[in-house]
């Protein structure tokens, strides 16, 4: 019997021919990601559990991003606890100001196709973009993995999403995943894997796939999987081995259901306040006046996102009453955008460019909003209170839509 991508990854990981949805198995962890905000909690739990060493320090990646640079005096404690932990147990992969964890994990080469990866952040689903099984866990389970190198998982059922054709010029992969979340609902993929396929997916860049994998959690999914191809191999700087090449859903694999889309049917959309699955065509909410635009995050802070926005903004100006905040996802993205002249275009148009990090997306720093304000944002959550007070309205959109709205000072179709 055929298998889905996630079934192949789990079976390979535990040295079996196949696994079935519903089975509870113990996987061997290839890599873990620990972020700064959870650091003191992870270290406390690890110590409480009584472990004397970390199972494999080389497999541990520690990334300071939510609290960098510090916005509250006590934030510094998180770096100190992390640094001391890394020193004591011999962890070498510590990123103190290089960017957002989910950007760095694949960008810096820590995740390869077929790997099993866990992180202390829900958007760990992002690494499915290169064909890995990756998902978010809490700090107690992370402490357990640090001691044992293993974790129990239930093999998920798979929902297949097939998209064929060519996307319209003004539609980005963000619009695609928002539409899918709207169709599935915020809990439509809970406990399940989302597997993406079809010619529109094959034609996407790894960065565009990343946006989709990142937001799979917003439909409740355990993970998102994409078939690794030549673009993946180039991005990961590897040659695909036979196992990796075979990471595609078999024709006779069993799926919980299949959603089929024609790429030409997609239009620019927004997730309206305050549910990720409250999806409307941009044309339905056109004219709504805005106060701020945010371009950034692990969802849409990559080079192609900044480039798309810069193309829309080139030679134009952000509306005088709008603050447009641009946050590159990593130092590397920042450098490349600088070299390519993208940042110059954005700044000339009137945008503010901030340091890479999680800052505004999680409502911590760099442009938090207040009662009655409205923001068009490219990140992944529009929950109550996410980017400021609970009376802020957050509209989630693609970089192209966000840039068009910044110029108009109101919601407009790109």
């Amino acid at each position, binding site marked *: 019997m055929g298998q889905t991508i996630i079934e192949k990854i789990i079976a390979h990981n535990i040295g079996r021919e196949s696994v079935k949805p519903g089975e509870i198995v113990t996987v061997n962890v290839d890599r873990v990601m620990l972020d700064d*905000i959870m650091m003191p909690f992870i270290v406390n739990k690890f110590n*409480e559990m009584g472990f004397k060493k970390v199972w494999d320090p080389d497999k541990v990646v520690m990334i300071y991003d939510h609290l960098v640079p510090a916005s509250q005096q006590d934030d510094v404690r998180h770096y100190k606890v992390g640094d001391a932990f890394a020193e004591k147990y011999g962890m070498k992969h510590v990123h103190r100001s290089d960017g957002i964890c989910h950007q760095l994990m694949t960008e810096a080469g820590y995740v390869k196709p077929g790997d099993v990866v866990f992180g202390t952040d*829900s958007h760990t689903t992002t690494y499915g973009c290169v064909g890995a099984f990756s998902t978010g866990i809490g700090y107690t389970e992370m402490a357990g993995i640090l001691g044992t190198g293993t974790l129990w998982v239930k093999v998920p059922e798979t929902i297949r999403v097939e998209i064929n054709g060519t996307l319209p010029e003004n539609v980005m992969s963000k619009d695609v995943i928002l539409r899918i979340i709207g169709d599935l609902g915020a*809990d439509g993929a809970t406990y399940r894997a989302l597997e993406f396929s079809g010619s529109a997916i094959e034609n996407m860049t790894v960065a565009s796939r990343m946006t989709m994998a990142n937001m799979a959690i917003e439909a*409740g999914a355990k993970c998102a999987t994409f078939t690794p191809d030549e673009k993946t191999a180039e991005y990961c700087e590897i040659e695909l081995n036979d196992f990796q090449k075979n990471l595609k859903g078999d024709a006779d694999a069993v799926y919980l259901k299949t959603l089929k889309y024609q790429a030409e049917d997609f239009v620019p959309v927004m997730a309206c306040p305050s549910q990720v699955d409250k999806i409307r065509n941009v044309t339905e909410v056109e004219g709504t006046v805005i106060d701020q635009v945010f371009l950034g995050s692990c969802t849409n802070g990559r080079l192609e996102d900044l480039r798309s926005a810069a193309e829309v903004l080139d030679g134009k100006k952000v509306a005088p009453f709008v603050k447009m905040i641009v946050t590159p996802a990593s130092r590397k993205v920042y450098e490349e955008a600088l070299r390519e002249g993208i940042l110059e275009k954005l700044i000339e148009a009137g945008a503010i460019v901030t340091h890479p990090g999680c800052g505004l997306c999680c*409502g911590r720093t760099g442009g938090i909003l207040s009662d009655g304000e409205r923001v068009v944002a490219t990140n992944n*959550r529009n*929950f109550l209170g996410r980017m400021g007070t609970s009376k802020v309205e957050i509209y989630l959109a693609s970089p192209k839509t966000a840039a068009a709205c910044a110029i108009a000072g109101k919601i407009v179709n790109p």
Partner: protein
Amino acid sequence: MEQFTGRVWVLGDDIDTDIIIPTEYLALKTIEDMKQYGFSPLRPELAGQIQPGDIIVAGKNFGCGSSREQAPEVVKALGIRCVIAKSFARIFFRNSINNGLLLIEQPDLHDHVKEGDTITVTVNQDVDHNGEKYPIASLPDNLVEILNAGGLVKAMQKRNGIHK
């Protein structure tokens, strides 16, 4: 069979972890420092009203959003005996079990219960609301093991030969 009775707080669908404990309070030193802000974006007064032994009854997808384990820890620290929802988000579910917070999936109770009502839970059997019994399922064995050990930390201590 373990049985307990509690007063009910009713919440809606998709109660996310940013509502349960907003990011701005996540880096406070202890869960005790954080718990006063529990549910503050939605109901700022709720954390001060919850009494030990109370029960939350919610709609679908309770605990969706981030992986922050502070969320179930805050719910537990507020004294909530258990959360009964139509469904739970997966990371919140794992985090709750690992911290010994009992979660119960029950599809119908939410549509019939009112805030302030009293219900009686018989674990692995049913929820009694004014004599009406709503059946509940048992947890898988590996989760019962973690719950019985008193959470994942205690299970790991046992593995490491530490007896506390």
